[in-house]
């Protein structure tokens, strides 16, 4: 079967239901999702119905939904937050943690409490410490393209034909493995050192330096050197590194996949 077709054949019958759940985050991930501009309208027209979203949808209780995009980390001292996260896991079939806070705790790792009217809210954990998360989209803020790709691929995974399901499965597999790996939810520049450089996998390509949102990584003698006081623990460097995950079979067909993604967004 030729799973890497450029053109998307057949009309899409019915859309998936998608919800955006806002935990302790800065809404930067939602803004990044919206930075797809017309792309969002294409997704909402053709592929997904938004059934839950802060201020976007007038729904009080979390409904049943196919895909839940969770943004932000969870304060374990805030009962509402932990109940909400547990409810999201019950109510949705695919849970996607978007952004550094939901995947690896990001800057909320540095929370110590002491903020007005809830000074004892001091412990924030990434979502995957509390519930089983299916897909990670790390980085602070996640890029619009990454979110678009994951949304489209999840749609294909749930509603596509067999070839599209296989392609989507293959594309999403590394992000799913990241969600279950021991280092996925603790990613920071240290992970890049511990899991790539110290294991003799680094070849000095510079992807981490480019991916770092706070420009904490410079390349010294061809190897990444991180300013750890700048590092915000978002995990972009580790996930962007071609030696953290890399599926040769998928990457060889990069052209067709890019073409298909463009076609899908027309």
């Amino acid at each position: 079967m030729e799973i890497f077709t450029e053109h998307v054949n057949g009309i899409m019958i019915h859309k998936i239901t998608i919800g955006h759940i806002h935990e302790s985050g800065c809404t930067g991930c939602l803004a990044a999702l919206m930075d797809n501009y017309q792309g969002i309208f294409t997704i909402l027209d053709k592929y997904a119905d938004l059934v839950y979203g802060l201020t976007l949808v007038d729904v009080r209780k979390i409904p049943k939904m196919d895909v839940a995009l969770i943004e932000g980390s969870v304060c374990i001292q805030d009962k509402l937050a932990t109940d909400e996260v547990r409810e999201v896991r019950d109510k949705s079939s695919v849970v996607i943690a978007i952004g550094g806070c939901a995947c690896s705790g990001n800057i909320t790792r540095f929370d110590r409490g002491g903020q007005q009217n809830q000074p004892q809210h001091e412990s924030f954990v990434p979502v995957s410490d509390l519930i089983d998360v299916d897909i990670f989209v790390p980085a602070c803020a996640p890029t619009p393209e990454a979110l678009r790709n994951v949304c489209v691929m999840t749609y294909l995974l749930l509603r596509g034909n067999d070839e599209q399901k296989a392609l989507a499965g293959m594309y999403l597999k590394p992000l799913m493995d990241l969600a279950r790996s021991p280092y996925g939810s603790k990613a920071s520049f240290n992970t890049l050192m511990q899991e790539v450089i110290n294991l003799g996998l680094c070849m000095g390509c510079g992807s981490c330096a480019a991916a770092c949102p706070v420009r904490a990584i410079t390349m010294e003698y061809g190897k990444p050197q991180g300013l750890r006081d700048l590092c915000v623990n978002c995990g972009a460097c580790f996930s962007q590194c071609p030696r953290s995950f890399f599926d040769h079979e998928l990457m060889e067909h990069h052209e067709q996949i890019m073409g298909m993604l463009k076609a899908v967004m027309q």
Partner: protein
Amino acid sequence: MAAPLGQYKMVLFARTTDKEILRGAQNGGIVTALLSYALDTGIIDGAVVAAPSRSKPWRGKFDPWRSEPIVAMTRDQLLSARKTGYNISPNVMMIKEATRSYGLDRVGIVGVPCQIQGVRKAQLYPIGMRGVPDKIALVIGIYCMEVFPYQSIVQIVEDHGGVKMESVEKIEIGKGNFTVVTERGRTIQIPLNETRDLEQPGCHVCLDYAATLADISTGSAGSPAGWSTVFIRTKIGDEVWKRAMQAGLFETKPIGQVEPGLGAVEKLAVEKITRNKKTLEDRDFIGTKGLRNPYITT
């Protein structure tokens, strides 16, 4: 878990005979008296105590109610550290420093039960505490139901109590109330269930009320106003207490005679430990995956 009040050789009510200490003391002035006696007799050559913070201004000024650990080596440093601010003072951070730049060989330390656990762990597993195990000479524990982050204290006093931090003379937690006494003598009582939420979360997993691992532990629970209930727990504690008694430092009353007695202490300890045990169990169901229990290593 051993008995809620832990092992002890002796327990009694006591109050210091040193009027100057008694005047500013929280209860019986036991800690300050013991430490200043130990300093004079050379049992310790310095003590880590919680004193009003001098190094870190907040909102532009040094709030005396914000405590910070210091290494006290003179009597008046000890006197400056008498009041309990009920907010976090990370005393254990100074025990290695005391043996380093302060050059002490016999270090005394005062701490709440979790800090005493920290000290004992530093003695048994001195992973980062070089030279500390043999230099801890006297460990005094104080009873503790919970501790508040400093901002919580500010919020309780100023928002719930409606009083400026600067005007506070004394803070006391007891008999179900968070009592704030101002300089002009006004007392405001805030029910504890109102401040329950603002407690430090780390305290909700603590299974020790009366500092069971200290040499000597003391607190107001169970004793009449102005007195303290004192547990003598270890050999060192016993020796130091005997010498202090011979020097006429304390007047004491046997435990049986005075209400409300040891039963009150036990009740508080059992209440705290059962409540915190329940929190520990709840942590297993906070999500579908449990949060780590520090007392069981995977």
